């Protein structure tokens, strides 16, 4: 029995306790839901501080039905005791063909109106987000590289 990288505590406990086979956990779903931790990817001050302190942002709400976050969905996030909006820009889950899969769940912080807090995005972004229906032109303007 092994646990993914998200639950480090449980991994360490299982190493000590040899016969602990009956941990009841929820299903491991390859999804970004309410409660997942994200990695901030722009150069905003809030995001940088949060990642350095070891308190990454956590999803509180998702503007989508069903409540599963996919690339380009808007999301409410809790950082350092504050509520902020953001956009999901990269996911660890397996995707359809021609859509990239990242090694970390990435997101970009923004205001209620859609203005991003940072001035530059340091990480490549999928081309899906360029769709006009998503309305993320301001974030496209900041981005450096597309995949």
């Amino acid at each position: 029995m092994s646990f993914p990288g998200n639950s480090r505590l449980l991994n360490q406990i299982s190493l000590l306790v040899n016969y602990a086979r009956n941990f009841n956990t929820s299903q491991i779903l390859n999804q970004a839901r309410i409660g997942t931790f994200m990695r901030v990817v722009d150069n905003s001050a809030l995001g940088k501080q949060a990642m350095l302190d070891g308190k990454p942002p956590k999803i509180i709400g998702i503007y989508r039905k069903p409540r599963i976050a996919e690339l380009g969905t808007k999301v409410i996030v809790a950082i350092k005791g504050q509520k902020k909006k953001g956009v999901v820009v990269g996911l660890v889950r397996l995707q359809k063909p021609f859509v990239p899969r990242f090694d970390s769940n990435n997101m970009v912080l923004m205001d209620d109106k859609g203005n991003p807090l940072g001035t530059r995005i340091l990480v490549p972004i999928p081309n899906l987000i360029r769709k006009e229906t998503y309305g993320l032109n301001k974030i496209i303007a900041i981005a450096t590289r597309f995949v």
Partner: protein
Amino acid sequence: MVRHYNNALPRPSTANKKLIPILPPEVKVKRGPISLNKVWYRGSSGRLIVIGQHITQLFKFERITLDYHHALEVQGYTERLITEAMRNGDRHIPTMELADFYIHEKQLVHKLFKVLVPRYIDYTDSFTKLWRLSPALSREDIITGKVRHADKGCLELKGNPLPPIEPPKYISRKSYLTNVLLDAAKKDFYASKQFSDNQTSKKKVETSAWLENFNSSLELISIYRNQISDIKHI
């Protein structure tokens, strides 16, 4: 219970490591592996050890009785083992490891490579034969009160020195005593002077002389037949 959705390898990759021949139609391979319900081993690793025990006994005695469904699995493993030994030979290391794993006695490994492989080199059919036996009980099992509802099977290697299970379908009658004597009489007649002299003469004379010889041989046959009726039919 923890289930690994993220960690499962969802789609298997095509494993084309080897070229394997297709098993002939006499061998019945089911879609999935058959579990040998034994109590002393746990899991799929023990199952292979049990199959190895059956294979060693097969190579030793060349005919064994098993549960029918167990024999179905053992049949497939033996055929694959022998084809690998035929193709790769004696010095190939992975085949030596396979033979070492499945065969628990060292003498039989030599038997595989030196006796069975040259026996089956020209075969296009299967090397083994599976017979289906009834679930009838023996006297000992009835006394002890054993109950058996499953069929038994008899697995044997082809070309074995034991007497065959099934009698041959066509019995040639050349070896019968009457036919042996008739053939001998024919030979003597055609080699004799009477035949060569009578060839020039008329047909009627030939037939009469030939008939006389034939009738005399029939008398001999009737004598022997009376003697044969005393003896039991072979």
